[in-house]
């Protein structure tokens, strides 16, 4: 290989490395800026199916711990037909989360197996995997460049789960607002097919943490969407680890 070509190849490799490093740095900053010891909110859900029929649900959400090492519980509080149904998620830094679902009528919980994570969570357009909180170390990132979304300048980043990590998605495209280091949209792909879009809107600073009060999920395979509106959001409340166990979950 002659010298100029060799130098060009080295330069190209260096540029790739800088981009790869930048993407991870951006995502690290995104994660750091939304980090809190605990979180509580009540969410109102509107599920709009392909024939435009709307069903409404409401859940209460509690989380203790930070990304990749957190525990969360999500419990339906309305409508009465599903009240009490709950999901317990134990996130791990190095692997997919453990999940159990509690159905009061059955008086028992059921483990959600890894192969079930792509299925919809209780009639919403969230999959079980979408309700996990994974650490960025479980993904490889690549900065694709700049993009504009709703008049805000964003970094467009591609993320792929690391080879050893299980995910329903082959890859995702992430849009991160430059001014706030805040994730505003995710397009999730299975192979090359776009299957689910998640948009984080109505962003407010609560207790110094940028928070999307409106999360819209579109399931493109079934042409339905779910809009989650967050209320009563609070961070860093005192919570106990013992409140996020399977035993407590059944009470």
């Amino acid at each position, binding site marked *: 290989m002659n010298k100029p070509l060799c130098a060009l190849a080295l330069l190209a490799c260096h540029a790739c490395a800088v981009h790869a490093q930048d993407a991870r740095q951006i995502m690290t900053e995104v994660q750091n800026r939304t980090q809190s010891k605990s979180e509580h909110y009540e969410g109102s859900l509107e599920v709009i199916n392909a024939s435009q029929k709307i069903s409404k649900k409401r859940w209460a959400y509690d989380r203790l711990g930070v990304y990749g090492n957190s525990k969360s519980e999500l419990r339906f509080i309305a409508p009465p*037909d599903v009240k009490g149904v709950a999901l317990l998620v134990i996130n791990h830094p190095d692997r997919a989360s453990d999940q159990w679902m509690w159905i009061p009528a059955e008086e028992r919980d059921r*483990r959600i197996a890894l192969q079930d994570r792509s299925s919809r969570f209780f009639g919403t357009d969230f999959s079980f995997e979408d309700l996990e909180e994974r650490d960025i170390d479980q993904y490889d990132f690549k900065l694709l460049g700049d993009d504009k979304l709703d008049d805000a300048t964003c970094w467009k980043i591609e993320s792929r789960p690391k080879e050893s990590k299980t995910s329903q998605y082959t890859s995702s495209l992430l849009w991160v607002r430059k001014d706030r280091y805040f994730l505003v949209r995710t397009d999730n792909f299975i192979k090359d097919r776009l299957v689910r879009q998640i948009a984080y809107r109505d962003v407010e600073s609560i207790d110094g943490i940028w928070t999307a009060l409106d999360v819209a999920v579109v399931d493109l395979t079934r042409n339905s969407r779910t809009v989650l509106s967050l209320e009563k959001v609070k961070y860093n409340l005192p919570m106990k680890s*013992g409140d996020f166990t399977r035993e407590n979950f059944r009470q």
Partner: protein
Amino acid sequence: MSKLLVAFVWAAGFTAHAQGFSQRGFMEMSGNIYTQTVPNDSAYGTGEALFGYELKWQPKPWLILNASLEARIDTHHQDSRSLQVDWEDRSLQRPALSIRQLSAVLKRDNLTMTLGKQFIRWGETDFLNPTDRFAPKDLLTIVDQEVLPVTAVRLTYTHGNNALNFVWQPLFTPGRIPLVNQRWTFVPEAFSQFDVQNIGSKFPGRSSFGVRWSRTSAGYEWSLSYYDGFNYLPSSIPSFDATLTRVSFSPFYPALRLYGGDLAIPLSQLTLKGEAAYYTSPTNQQDEYLLYVLQLERQIHDLRLIFGYAGEVVTAHAETLQFAGERGFARAVFGHALYTLDSNRTLTLDVFVRQNGGSALLRPGYSHSFGEHWRATVSFTWLSGDPNDFLGRYYRNSFATAELRYSF
């Protein structure tokens, strides 16, 4: 005890706006239409109305109070007409008014203690739970099994991925078996001219005890359990009167010592679940046997599939007549499919086939919710088989069911 419940409801009502208070309830109307009559039951149709109300109140971070009450009435006298509030759940008929739960949960660090009337479920599998000994079943209609609560003290200690459960049940709760004058009691042809009478149950006096150690890991979860108490399904020794016109029996509940375990392994495409228990009889009043279930689960988008086998190995026989409410479902393959059409509608299918072809059950169902409160469910249970088979003997009991539930 009913005064205690009323006091709790009253206190909870006053604190309805307090943090940690929640309530829910439902009203349900259901009807069954049978395709045939049977010799001891000439009714084609039955109907029932059910009301349930549940309260949960957490006045302190370390204290939760639970209460629930059920009221029911039916056309077929499977439900008692007495308005006395029932705590013990020992009656032959379902009580008209019963306390389903009245318990206090006390928490401190890794310890949780639950005192009072409560539901305790052990085991991993769905169709049959050999280790689930603190969950007596209401088997009045055999194929629609309800779980009954028990009066117990439950202590749970969790440490990392391990949980240790101790249960002490001072007051025995029997399972409920079919009423002798109704279609789910099978009277063999040879006994059809006799007047069959249940002259009252003999309940055990001492308490029951159980312990379960469970562990959860990344690739599996398992538990080991031990139970020392009584079988909640009765045995009996029938006796004939002098004129040979009447057969009487008095159900009793044999002592039972049980060693069990369960396991769940999520594999790449399927989840494998297994549960087994070895039933021993310290007083030799019932058979000794191993009851086990192996089950595979798979979720394919909105379709959930369960397929499995329930087996039994008998190691010792006893000379008593034993009600086979659970074992009667062993030695069979079973399947369950649940298809979620959308957020309001589901289709289900249950299948049961005895390995020797002695009986079969097929139950398709459809459920539809309307708005925020209403849900309608319809199903048809088709039963077929041989009169010598536990389930097959109900071959004339195929029925259609319609339910309408209002939740609030």
